[in-house]
């Protein structure tokens, strides 16, 4: 696991302690740059951050067009894992990369808690 700047470590710890989570990141939502990360080896943090932020921006516009309000949580399930994201009020994205069989409800709960910590 890589380290995170002091202060954000606690928020990321909430997520990475969930069984099946391979890493967690805080990503600047407007520019897709990594703010803090705790990732297992082999996960390309910068790539995940940039693409997740790009996706979040597009999803935000789609939700706005659909008139369903702001995004609160999204979950992309893939055959070898999952990407789970909660946007914090400040615009920072709280991102988890997880195993395919992770407890999604628990990860969602911890992402929401971490988003509150981040503000």
């Amino acid at each position, binding site marked *: 696991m890589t380290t995170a700047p002091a202060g954000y470590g606690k928020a990321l710890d909430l997520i990475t302690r969930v069984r099946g989570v391979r890493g967690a990141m805080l990503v600047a939502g407007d520019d897709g*740059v990594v703010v803090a990360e705790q990732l297992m080896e082999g996960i390309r943090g*910068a*790539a995940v951050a*940039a*693409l997740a*932020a790009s996706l979040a921006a597009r999803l935000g516009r789609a939700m706005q067009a659909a008139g369903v309000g702001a995004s609160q949580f999204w979950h992309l399930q893939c055959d070898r894992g999952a990407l789970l994201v909660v946007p914090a009020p400040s615009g920072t994205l709280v991102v988890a990369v997880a195993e395919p069989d992770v407890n999604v409800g628990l990860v969602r709960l911890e992402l929401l808690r971490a988003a509150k910590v981040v503000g």
Partner: protein
Amino acid sequence: MTTRAIEAWTLEPLVTFVQEASARLVLVMTAAGQVIAQHGFSRALDVMSAAALGAAIMASTEELARLLRQPPFAALNHQGERQGIFLAAVATARGRLVLLVVYELDVSSLGLVQLFFEQLAADLQAASPKQAVSKQVLAADFERELSDSLNTLFRR
């Protein structure tokens, strides 16, 4: 939007970068500001101005780095209200190339541009001719060569 290259080996990496990073304008140039490829520009004057300014910014930051006794800065990003400018250099067998990228904040981001710039740098390094042709630039040829380059860049 069109992508044009004076040196053909730069075209494919540049087209891929533009598509992946959703860049609006891109210039590939030498450290001296000589344009090798461009995407999105419609006027020769804009290309020449942007290249000159981009090369000057790179030269300034390199000098700052030298004063700070550190290696040249890897990249430079200016973020405006709706657009961002990303400037970075890549070492190739052809010599040191400078990339100037303008991106819209509502379709791209610094993260995306940085991410795909890494790929572009690797592609340019792989595609660059191994034996650079060093050619003496004569004053008599300069205007004709400049005109030829602009014709290629804008297909006039």
